[in-house]
């Protein structure tokens, strides 16, 4: 593995495509995967036993389907998909579902979305939309090919523009400043928060000022191409032959130094960024694989093995050190295969536990006794609404540019309104604005309007019985069939309607209530 990684890195320098190499070296055998899955569960269970906590029950099919769709595809399942899964009798249907979700084109989009959100946390302001879109499109194309993750990071770091316009935009959004690039890249790729060390020795961790500036020195020789001054031109980065950083308020030049203290770079070829990229992807770098594994774990389980996810270090020990170490080795073994990592985690028993808590006091979250309830990002919420309400695509008038995905103005407006500032996935930090938006906002109003809602219009099909209509509403919003009590309540509400118009309004009321329920807005 070491040789392969080093070979790949050398190929990077000399420009030999390493795709073929990567494809042979990626993936894992089914047996090894199964072994890892069992090991994860074993280590978690051992810890539970130590703490004398009982693991929660297994989630039922509907819960699992909804959770897996949200985590792997970014959106709730369609009604037809829910029906198909619930009536499927294959014994390994959950594993099949996971494979199906991971191979869907939406998975790549969802990954790109998630990655973009922690890489560019500033959000989707309209002035940065080009930067954001550039980064996201680039990420999506890498993820849809299931490119090795270490290769993705290397390509990202050495991007110059042109076809890699996305990463180049990331660089320019940070103004090509070495200290900003150092702080940002260490956080998002290596899970290290070293920006404290910019001015003084890190208070908790072992980073010194020289360490920070030694890392920042790798970004010291960057410039933007001056050839094109017009705003429409593509960004182009160039590596200069010289440029240094100094300790702040001094003249002391700091030479480039890798974060793990590895030896110097004096006799290595290539620009400083290339050297950094080689080190990033190499076996000598203990941080990349570990940080990635931790992030993916936190996306799936709502909480990383180390929390916060971008602050790994001796001051912040993992909740399951052996698990983290073994999972990191496994990830490297698969060839930094992100899809495999998601697949392995999704197949564990721990991932398939219900989020329901039976006792009065919930167990400590770091034990993973039950599945955590995760919030949806505002964009995810919008996409779910879209899916539920079956908005007809291509609703724009002819000669306006068709807004798709990232550029959909309604999506942007919704995301801006609902933007939750907290980074923690398990804390629901919505305020009055968000609540009112969901209760009364234009999205909800259109969705539940008797005239405009496609979903409500579909319910008019003559071959639906009333209880089937209620079932459709539940399947479309909560991805599960109604319980006895819910059935009774809703049917009574419909029966109380005097005429046809009132009946339509009754369905609209039910839909509105479901959209505003916590069960809809959460990933549980």
């Amino acid at each position, binding site marked *: 593995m070491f040789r392969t990684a080093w070979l790949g890195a050398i190929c990077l320098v000399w420009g030999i495509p390493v795709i073929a190499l990567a494809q042979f070296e990626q993936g894992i055998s089914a047996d090894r995967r199964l072994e890892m899955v069992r090991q994860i569960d074993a280590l978690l269970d051992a810890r539970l036993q130590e703490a004398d906590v009982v693991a929660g029950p297994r989630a039922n099919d509907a819960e699992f389907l909804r959770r897996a769709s949200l985590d792997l*595809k970014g*959106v709730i399942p*369609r*009604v*037809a*998909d829910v*029906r*198909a899964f619930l*009536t499927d009798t294959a014994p390994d249907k959950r594993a099949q579902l996971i494979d199906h979700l991971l191979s*869907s*084109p*939406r998975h*790549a*989009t969802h990954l790109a979305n998630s990655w973009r959100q922690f890489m560019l946390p500033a959000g989707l302001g309209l002035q940065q939309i*080009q930067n954001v*879109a*550039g980064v996201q*499109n680039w990420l*999506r*194309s890498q993820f*849809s090919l299931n490119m090795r993750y270490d290769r993705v990071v290397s390509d990202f770091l050495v991007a110059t523009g042109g*076809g890699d*316009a996305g990463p180049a935009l990331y660089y320019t959004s940070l103004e090509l400043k070495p200290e900003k690039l150092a702080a940002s890249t260490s956080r998002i790729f290596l899970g290290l928060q070293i920006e404290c060390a910019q001015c003084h020795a890190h208070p908790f961790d072992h980073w010194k000022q020289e360490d920070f500036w030694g890392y920042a020195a790798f970004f010291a020789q960057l410039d933007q191409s001056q050839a094109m001054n017009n705003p429409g031109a593509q960004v182009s980065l160039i590596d200069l032959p010289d440029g240094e950083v100094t300790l702040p308020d001094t003249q002391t030049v700091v030479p480039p130094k890798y974060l793990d203290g590895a030896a110097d770079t004096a006799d290595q070829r290539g620009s400083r960024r290339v050297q950094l990229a080689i080190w990033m992807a190499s076996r000598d770098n203990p941080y990349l694989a570990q940080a990635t594994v931790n992030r993916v774990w936190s996306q799936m389980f709502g909480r990383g093995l180390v929390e916060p996810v971008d602050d790994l270090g001796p001051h912040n020990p993992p909740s399951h050190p052996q698990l983290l170490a073994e999972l990191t080795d496994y990830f490297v073994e698969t060839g930094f295969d992100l899809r495999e990592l998601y697949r392995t985690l999704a197949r564990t028993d721990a991932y398939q536990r219900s989020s329901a808590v039976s006792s009065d006091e919930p167990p400590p979250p770091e034990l993973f006794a039950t599945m955590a309830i995760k919030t949806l990002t505002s964009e995810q919420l919008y996409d779910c609404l879209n899916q539920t309400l*079956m*908005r*007809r*695509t*291509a609703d724009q008038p*002819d*000669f*306006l*540019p*068709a807004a*798709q*995905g*990232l*550029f959909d103005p309604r999506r942007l407006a919704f995301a801006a309104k609902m933007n939750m500032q907290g980074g923690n996935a398990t804390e629901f930090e919505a305020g009055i604005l968000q609540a009112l938006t969901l209760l009364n906002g234009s999205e909800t109003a259109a969705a539940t309007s008797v005239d405009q*809602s*496609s*979903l*409500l*219009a*579909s*319910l*008019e*099909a*003559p*071959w*639906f019985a009333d209880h*089937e209509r209620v079932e*459709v509403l539940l399947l*479309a919003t909560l991805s599960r069939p109604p319980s006895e009590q819910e059935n009774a309540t809703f049917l009574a509400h419909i029966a109380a309607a005097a005429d046809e118009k009132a009946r339509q309004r009754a369905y609209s009321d039910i839909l509105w209530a479901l959209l505003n329920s916590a069960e809809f807005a959460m990933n549980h």
Partner: protein
Amino acid sequence: MNCHTKISCCVCFSIAMLVTVGGCRQSVVKSVPTSTGEATSATITAENAGDQAEDASAAESTIVGIDGAADVHPQADVDTNTDAETSPAAAHGPEAVGLRNADAETDSSTQAMTQQVAGPATIAASSPASEQTSGSDQSPAVELPTRESQPRPRDLPPTERVILLTPGGPLVVDIEITIDGDVHSSALEALVDDAFAAADVDGDGQRTWEEVANSPRFMYGQFGNLPITDDAQKSQLITMYDRNADGLVDRDEVPRFVTRNVGRSRSFSLRSSNEFRSASRSRSPLRQLLDFDHNGAITSDEMAAAPARLLSQDADDDQIVTLADFKDDAQATPGRMSNRRRTTEPETAILINDRTKWNSASYILQELYSFGDTVQASDWPLTPELFATLDTDRDARLGSAEVEQLATVRPHLRLRAQFGIQDAEGGSRKTSLELDVVDPAIEALVTSKRSYARRVSIELTGVEVEFFVNEDPALNNYEEVAQGQFSTLDTDGNGYLEASEVPNQLPGLDIPFAGVDANQDDKIEVQELANFLNLRQRAYRGQVRARAADQEDALFTALDTNGDGRIHARELAATPDLLAKMDSNQDGDLQSHEIPGSMVVGLVRGNPQQDDTLFVMPTETTDASSQNVPRWFLGMDTNRDGEVGRHEFLGASNRFDTLDKNADGFISPAELPPEMLGDG
């Protein structure tokens, strides 16, 4: 040109003016007929046709006394326009005849194919020579043709002729355009007439540019010109528009003044956008996606794998693939026509009229079809009859003289574009488009023809052509805008606006008070405002611009069989068969040249600055609702492909199987039992 010529030109001109002032000028002014076939057009275009041209031109030359070279100087100024398609705009009127040769020399653009707006003596717009020579009666050669003496217009209305350069050969398309029910040149002509008449501000019988620059009827930009705010602008205005620098407003100087556009001061113009000429098929993004092993051809294995490969690009997982899913372009607008021209690519279309540069046209044909050599019959597999018709000396090659007959041959297609037609109740104005295939040989090659209100697409062997019309709705809404402004500003509600109610300029409209107050009674009524806005839009209403281009991805448009810009589930399923059918030599590989060409021609009307939003193909498809489809069906059909697929269906699976009679995975409206139709 140098000063000497200019001075001599001025002298001659002045003398000539003294000689011919009065009656002759009256007749010149009056002679603005609206239909074709008039003699002077014939005289101009039929330069090849001999004597009449000489006589008529002699007659006209005596009026003005300018030799051919004279107007070159002012024209040289205007050659700096960036629009490569146009030659200098003006040259209407008497000078036009003499200027023909001069234009050929001085025109800096290599592909100047423009239409000439009728000047006083040159009469109507576009008539292609074919309309004239087919039995027209030339007017008497000597006397200056006036409107009254024109022959009656013939049965066929005037058309513009465009040669569309498809991969298989040129298609001759005659386009008949009406604006508000009249032939398209009349709208702009009427505006020019009005402006010309209004130019005599002080009523002394003389129209001078000084008068115009100082007149409140012009200085606020009422006639579509730029507002004149200071003296420097006045002198700039005069310099720019008084092309023969005689201080007087000539009718042929007016079109540029009212359209403020050097290159497009005519009622019809064509821009050939050749950005995707070769890329459309050979560098089609879809072809590259499907050609997984990058060997340049799509093999039969790749054809079978095509649907899965396409679906892998469906980023939002709605079972629909659009062009934007392949391209990196973050904001791809489906159906937008490219405006870019590359000097290294051949042209897409040629506009044929009296000002066509035939040696350029000949060169274009050679470059595109025969690699620079003379064109032979085998170079035009789509239109061999056209070749035979043109090849009059039967030497199996087309010389440049023979190419000139393109102006007179019968057309293959006839397009009728109507702008500004009011619907029956006199409500909103619409545009519409109709296409007729008039050539039987082409008719035999038509594999499909789809007509919608504003769009027509026709598939021939080896090429698909789409025509569309579009119009800026802002052209006709001046009444509403005026009402809107009024209700906002008329705070005391007395029905008119006083100077106190109006800020310096009407908000958003950049018009000072005095400009709108036509009768200068210090009150602006709604009607005055509406008239002002109306007048300002008149130039845009009188001009139609065409753009011809290749589609960006010919393979995508070929797979998108219903032409709505999206490949939906049923089209995806049909892809392998369609690809196999395209393989014309049946060798199992689909090469780039076997992909049918895909071209678009758009005709728009509106503010030229909005062209990039107007030149977007309308995505009209057969609306399912027109088929009496129930509301619930439309509700379930989320991706709007007219059918409900299994993944869109909301009911139970066995219910789907009951409704899907032919078990193809889609419920189409036809499969619904009759009692369900017409419901809701």
